């Protein structure tokens, strides 16, 4: 038996009886619930799955409608999902950023780290001169790939890593099973404008191209999207309907683009079929049902199936500039990383705020999740010029 630490060991009789004995003899605020039902009623009540019929009654004998049943089951499933997450099993219940400025939870990477992506084991970070591979379990920088100059965004798909390069307008591909080396250029005629974001619809790669200024006193090149077919690596560039697209997300059916007018839903040919008006949009995230879109008013939650704006919320009076906020989803929570260094957390199911935190960096460029942690790219964080922070 494990050695007891107290100077005197006091023995007492073990409890006898069934494996589980319910001892709840009060039923919280409710006066009309029997002892037999009380534990289950209170569990539902305190988890927020159900409410009482009045402040002091639960009305346990009342019938339940189909609509009410749907709410109860849905909320119950959400609780189950929350508790069954790997983060729960690992005991990571905190919701604040670690002290990144002290170098804890941060990995130094190449200059001007952009929008990262997770492959389930490692985090891939595009930087100005390299693509850096960071092991998720401990944040160790494993390797760096070169050749993708001016890398802006990364896509993990088909067992490969795809990288958008701004200079020249090229799509690169990395085989993560191969030794680190030079990324392979697979498409070299992606739109003249700089690819900013990248997504995959299951068969083709899409890039959102924006904001390249060809020279002094010249206007920026109009935005576009490119659709690239793997294998042949043919590129279809679509300019109609786009101004300055800076974000892309696939909802399982359609590609959505974050652009100046708002969120644009596209058909398979890249034509705009729906516009959800918004201003100063950032990079969106998809949570399986809704799009989370950072914008000038905070963050808007858009039902992907209909384009309906379910809510526009803000945890502070933050007003951000176009293209400088990124959303990421970890399976339960949505993180918004804003460029001035603020990090917001939201509950994706209830749309409730979970808090805001300061990253400590002067500039936050991108975010992703590996399903356990969020990862945020940070610039000018104390002694770290460009880093990847675990959250």
């Amino acid at each position, binding site marked *: 038996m494990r050695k007891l630490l107290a100077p005197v060991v006091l023995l007492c009789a073990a409890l006898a009886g069934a494996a589980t004995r319910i001892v709840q003899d009060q039923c919280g605020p409710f006066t009309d619930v029997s002892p037999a039902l009380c534990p289950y009623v209170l569990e539902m009540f305190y988890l927020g799955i159900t409410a009482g019929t009045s402040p002091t009654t639960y009305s346990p004998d009342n019938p339940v409608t189909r609509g009410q049943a749907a709410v109860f089951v849905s909320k119950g499933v959400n609780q189950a999902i929350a508790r069954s997450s790997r983060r*729960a099993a690992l005991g990571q219940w905190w919701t604040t950023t*670690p002290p990144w400025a002290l170098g804890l939870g941060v990995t130094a990477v190449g200059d001007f780290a952009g929008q990262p992506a997770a492959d389930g084991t490692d985090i891939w970070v595009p930087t100005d001169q390299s693509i850096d591979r960071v092991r998720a379990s401990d944040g*160790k920088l494993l390797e760096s790939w070169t050749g993708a100059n001016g890398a802006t965004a990364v896509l993990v798909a088909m067992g490969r890593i795809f990288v958008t390069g701004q200079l020249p307008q090229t799509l690169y591909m990395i085989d993560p099973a191969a030794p680190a080396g030079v990324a392979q250029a697979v498409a070299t005629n992606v739109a003249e404008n700089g690819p900013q974001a990248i997504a995959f619809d299951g068969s083709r790669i899409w890039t959102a191209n924006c904001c390249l200024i060809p020279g002094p006193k010249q206007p920026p090149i109009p935005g576009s999207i490119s659709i690239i077919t793997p294998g042949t690596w043919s590129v279809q560039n679509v300019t109609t309907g786009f101004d300055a697209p800076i974000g892309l997300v696939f909802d399982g059916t359609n590609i959505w683009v974050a652009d100046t007018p708002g969120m644009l839903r596209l058909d398979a040919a890249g034509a705009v079929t729906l516009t959800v008006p918004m201003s100063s949009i950032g990079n969106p995230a998809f949570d399986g049902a809704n799009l989370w879109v950072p914008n000038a008013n905070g963050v808007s939650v858009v039902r992907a199936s209909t384009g309906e704006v379910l809510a526009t919320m803000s945890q502070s009076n933050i007003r951000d500039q176009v293209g400088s906020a990124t959303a990421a989803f970890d399976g339960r929570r949505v993180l918004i990383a804003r460029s001035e260094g603020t990090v917001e957390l939201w509950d994706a199911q209830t749309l409730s705020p979970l808090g805001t935190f300061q990253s400590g960096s002067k500039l936050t460029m991108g975010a992703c999740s590996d399903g356990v942690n969020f990862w945020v790219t940070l610039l000018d964080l104390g002694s770290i010029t460009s880093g990847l922070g675990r959250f």
Partner: protein
Amino acid sequence: MTSLPSPLGPFGLVACDGTDVWVGAADSVFRIRASDGELLETWSIKKAAGALLVAMGRVFVAGFGLAGEPGILSMIDPRQSPGPATVVATNLPTYPFVPAFDGARIWTANTAGSVSILTPFAAAPWTVATVETGFQLPSGIVFDGSHVWVSDSGPCVLLKLDARGSVLQTVSVGLRGGSPLPLTFDGSHVIVSNALAGVHVVRVADGATVALLDVAHGAPSGAAFDGERLLVIGQGDPSRGLAPTLSLLRTADFALLGETELTGIFPVAAASDGLNFWITVEARDGSKLVRL
């Protein structure tokens, strides 16, 4: 089953970082790859491991020495090559056990009668604030996302603390003290393993005890949560002919899914990486880490 190079010591603690499993022993911390159980690395520590914590991309080890000696907190950077763990705090009270992390600070429950709150700094030593008021024999500690909870083996209670370590709420978890009270959090409940009084399930929302689980022959010594199930370790009692046990329960309703008696191995501690349970055991041929 992975054989460990040296004995576990009295606590044989285990923690998971999502990819590897870390095991604390008398003078070492072992790193084992979860996918195949291969022993990857051995790190040395200055004092016996009383607790392991994975947080902020690091592995923290609370260490204790001889009676009366101050405790220490060491830090392992798993990105580096294995070697001696870095000591970041040297003035912990005697017998620091079971650290917890609240997102910004590390908390330790110190069996000598206090709780310590450590604030990370760029360089060692880290600031340590120790609170003694309200504590007798702290032996377990967890963070529920909002508050730190500490178990106290003296009065046999569970204590809810505020951010400064002051007691906000006291919940009885047994009739008489004296047994260590390891804690586990399942997202809604703090689960208290009381070898003298069974497993107490306390709801964090209001501090109500919602269930008493009579498993492990009524003598549980620890538990682990994998996201859906609770594994309870029972170390048994040879004087009463009680064999060590492993009990598996569903946390949705705490229904018993199964219970087994162990022969030839003695379970010490448990953890989960979300996919498997891991237990440290003492066997006839040495200390081991077992995947369930």
